[in-house]
């Protein structure tokens, strides 16, 4: 599925709108420690169309069913320990957002199971991230990493395109993709474009800041000069590509076309520059999640969620994705949970040499009484951090409400549990996208529901009506129970 090109003419209309747009956003509570008034100018929009924002999140290595799934019914449900406050951490919890929550049970990531060509041959960590938000079986072979492709676009891209279409103009950033991976890795990439090409995420707070505010604090004339230059340069670049394209082989034409489409996408956004005041960068410098060492994870995710909130507040984008850690082996050493070197295991009888303190390794022991409380701590940390994003968005006023009113966060894991299963994918929704869905519920499906229908339901809530997403054979239609 290819996105609808937005022509320069539409774009110019967008610019005109910027010039006369009303400054709707005046207060950025709790975001700017330097006392700078961060004022953004929101593009003009029809008063009747509410703003909606989508955030997709992946937590690694599954959950603990006994503490993740609530007890009770659709509305009288009782949350488990994974969704309650985590001792010793200054984080909100899903329990604080009970009325904004939908917890799902019985949603299966069938596309993951169907990956690599043979139904049933897919396996959690290898195919889970690629399928989680595409609903399409992963292409390529299990170990042929160069052949890795998404089976189609992820819904964050589809939703971003729909929102821009409704908006009538592109945003400066189509989608803000943040995550541990900082590049290509099938254990941590969840966003894919229409070609099934993975979209690189940023793991660097400093680079993310520059992406958001690189052109901040410029005069109007300086901004216009940049726009003019970029447009001329990108036009010239495209002409160069076209000359080579005509001469290239059939197979290379496909590659060059992909590049040219991407240039057009960038060019389309040249005019959409922000007018937010550039905040102070100091606290966003030089901190990344570390690859093997997760010591910085709480600080890093907190800063990334700050930046994401700023990006939304300045209307740089309406869509974001976030990956806490790559899934699978070796990447999730979480010493801040008291796991360093196997100490702090609450008197567990296990040999210290065995208790690796590594989340993925531990997740294999899910269901064992000694380990479930430890794994639950990890879940409570991830869920609490997502709740923190909600809290940050709630601290920013927008119109008569807050940014959070516009949000729909869709979170899950690449696997159900550390048993590498793809049934009972632990989907959670936080936020109702301006009243588009009914939250405060536990939806416990007794039949197996391919997660495609949930993705369709979320797309519908975000204004994108479709009957299939990903593998059409897995789709019955948008999950009706959302509304």
């Amino acid at each position: 599925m290819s996105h609808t090109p937005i022509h320069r003419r539409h774009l110019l209309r967008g610019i005109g709108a910027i010039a006369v747009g009303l400054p709707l956003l005046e207060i950025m509570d709790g975001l700017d420690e330097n006392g700078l008034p961060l004022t953004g100018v929101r593009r003009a929009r029809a008063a009747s169309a509410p703003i909606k924002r989508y955030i997709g999140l992946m937590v690694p290595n599954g959950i603990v069913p006994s503490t993740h799934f609530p007890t009770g019914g659709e509305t009288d449900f009782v949350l488990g320990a994974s969704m309650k406050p985590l001792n010793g951490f200054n984080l909100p919890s899903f329990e604080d957002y009970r009325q904004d929550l939908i917890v799902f049970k019985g949603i299966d990531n069938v596309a993951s199971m169907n990956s690599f060509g043979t139904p049933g041959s897919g396996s959690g960590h290898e195919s889970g991230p690629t399928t989680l938000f595409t609903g399409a079986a992963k292409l390529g072979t299990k170990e042929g990493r160069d052949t890795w492709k998404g089976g189609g676009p992820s819904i964050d891209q589809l939703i971003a395109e729909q929102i821009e279409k409704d908006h009538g103009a592109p945003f400066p950033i189509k989608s803000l993709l943040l995550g541990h991976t900082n590049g290509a890795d099938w254990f941590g990439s969840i966003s894919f474009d229409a070609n099934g090409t993975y979209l690189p995420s940023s793991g660097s707070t400093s680079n993310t800041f520059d992406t958001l505010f690189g052109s901040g604090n410029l005069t109007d004339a300086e901004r216009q000069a940049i726009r003019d230059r970029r447009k001329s340069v990108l036009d010239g670049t495209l002409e160069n590509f076209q000359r080579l394209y005509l001469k290239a082989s059939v197979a290379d034409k496909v590659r060059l076309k992909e590049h040219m489409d991407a240039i057009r996408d960038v060019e389309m956004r040249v005019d959409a520059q922000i007018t937010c005041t550039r905040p102070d960068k100091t606290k966003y410098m030089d901190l990344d999640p570390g690859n093997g060492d997760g010591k910085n994870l709480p600080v890093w995710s907190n800063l990334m969620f700050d930046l994401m909130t700023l990006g939304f507040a300045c209307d740089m984008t309406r869509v974001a994705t976030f990956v806490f850690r790559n899934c699978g082996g070796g990447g999730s050493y979480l010493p801040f949970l008291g796991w360093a070197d196997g100490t702090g295991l609450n008197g567990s009888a296990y040999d210290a040499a065995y208790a690796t303190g590594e989340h993925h390794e531990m997740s294999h022991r899910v269901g064992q009484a000694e380990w479930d409380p430890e794994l639950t701590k990890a879940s409570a940390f991830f869920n609490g951090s997502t709740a923190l994003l909600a809290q940050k968005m709630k601290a920013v006023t927008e119109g008569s409400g807050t940014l959070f009113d516009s949000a729909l966060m869709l979170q899950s894991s690449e696997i159900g549990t550390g048993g590498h299963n793809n049934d009972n994918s632990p989907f959670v929704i936080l936020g109702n996208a301006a009243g588009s869905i009914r939250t405060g519920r536990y939806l416990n499906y007794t039949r197996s529901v391919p997660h495609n229908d949930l993705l369709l339901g979320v797309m519908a809530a975000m204004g994108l009506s479709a009957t299939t997403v990903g593998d059409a054979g897995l789709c019955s239609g948008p999950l009706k129970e959302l509304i």
Partner: protein
Amino acid sequence: MHLDTRNPRHRCALPARGWLCSLTLLPLTVLGLGCTAQVKPSGGTSSASAAAVGGANSNGIQSAGGGGSTVLGSGGCGAIVPTTCNQPYPGEAPIRRLTRAELNNMLADLLGDKSRPADLMPTDSVRFSYETSIQPHGISAPLVDQYMQVAEKVSLGVLSNLDSTLPCQPANGEESCAQAYIAQLCKGAFRRSCSAEDTAPLFAMWQKGRAAGDFKTGIQYLVEMVLQSADFLYRPEFGDPASAGAGFVKLSGSEVATRLSYYLWSTEPDAALTMAADAGQLATKEGVATQAKRMLQDPRAHEAVQRFHEQWLGLDALATVAKSDTFTGFNAARPLLKAETRAFVDALFTENSDLGTLLSAPYSYSNDALESFYGLPSPGSAQAFKKVPRDATRYAGILTQGSFLAVNGKLNQSAPVMRGVQVLRQVLCADLPAPPPNLKITIPPPTADTTTRARFEQHENDPACSSCHQVIDRVGFGFEHFDAVGRWRDKDNNLLVDASGALMGTDVDGPFNGAGELGQKLANSEQVRSCYLRNVFYNVHGRPPTAPDRCSLEQLQANFKTTQYTLQDLAVAVTQTDAFLYRTPVTP
């Protein structure tokens, strides 16, 4: 202005398929069947009996004479699967985009920007492929946005130092000066002589910038455009039409020069190479070999060789692999472990040692700090890495260096499975299936009286695991004398280590005791030699070899044997193959 390029006619594959043409040539992986005792050489779809002995199909690809041509088809996209090697058979030659490292080097060589601006971009590959891979993950808008940011940053640097860059004085005529600069920039950036067709649009771009500001603004527009253009970011090849034959065309001199330069130096050709190309000296294999030998002496070639070996064994993870704090000194040792492998590889390459030595050498390169970390006697060298002896019964060249063992080690314990898998996959090119779905891993926890080995032997008692894990673990157990960070140990959990193991489904099957004996077996394996060639080919050509590459691989294989498996000779031999000197004809 924009031509319609939205619907290219392509008969090969859909754009959604990663490898495009090559995809149709990829080996069919048998999935879901579990392992047998036989390990198929990857790339082969041949019968288990042939595959069980690597030598029977030792080049690691489907042979055309067998069932290969029916499985693999005609090679798609114009590449012919040869039955006899009576003419050049080049295989696929997809257009190559600059890697991050190549872009950094180009910006330094072309524009003097040594700040490695492309490091901001995402990494080029994931573990166990090569940075030079044709980037099948494709290109996306965020990546193009980053190209734009790199170009803008670099162009500002050019402007700040323009006077020393320009071959002329703008005051003496801006337009003629811009033309002179364009002539200079174009040849370097596009790696070939530029025609009016190339330079006219560049001059027009300068004029646009000039109109928006001054002379310098024109240069800014120009440089930004050049650095984002297809002719710069990609390396197009068309071949010399006069030399076209059935399914092949010989590359032009400048195209061969560019291939040589990116293969050995990861950057544009130098003046000597360009001159050789202009003088027609790259039209013969001898001329190409002469240049390759010259270039191998350059430090950039040594860097390329080291990078290849680091990627082959997935050693980049050394920088980030997590280890328990109980391994005091590991963080300080990370760069030393990397340097050890680099020094070792570099010495072997410089001495033109053979592949067997790489996998079995009873020596390494180390300094006082690193030997102290290993718990070995000080070699008396505070900084420099000097040759240090190793016990041949215990050590096996690169495979017993801390870099390989720590990367393939858990947070605080050894990892027989990881080590076994990497030896089988990367050194022997065995095709191991991934674990089956819904796998419940039930390795029992350690007690005071079990070793790591004893716990993993549980795999063999569980029928769901045993078919694969008896193959994997018995290789990995050979490394049990090395702990999570690669230090020798006699005991594991206070019990004596048992490092006996066995190779199964290879051409060097049989029992061995410890890494030393494993290394000896690997050093004499035809399957290992073929696997190594396969990896070298992958790195050089940005794709794994496929059926149409049969003749090139046979050329490499024959040469490798003649030169007694020596590494420098192999590096030259790579440049003598059909795959390196020819390409498939370009039909737009």
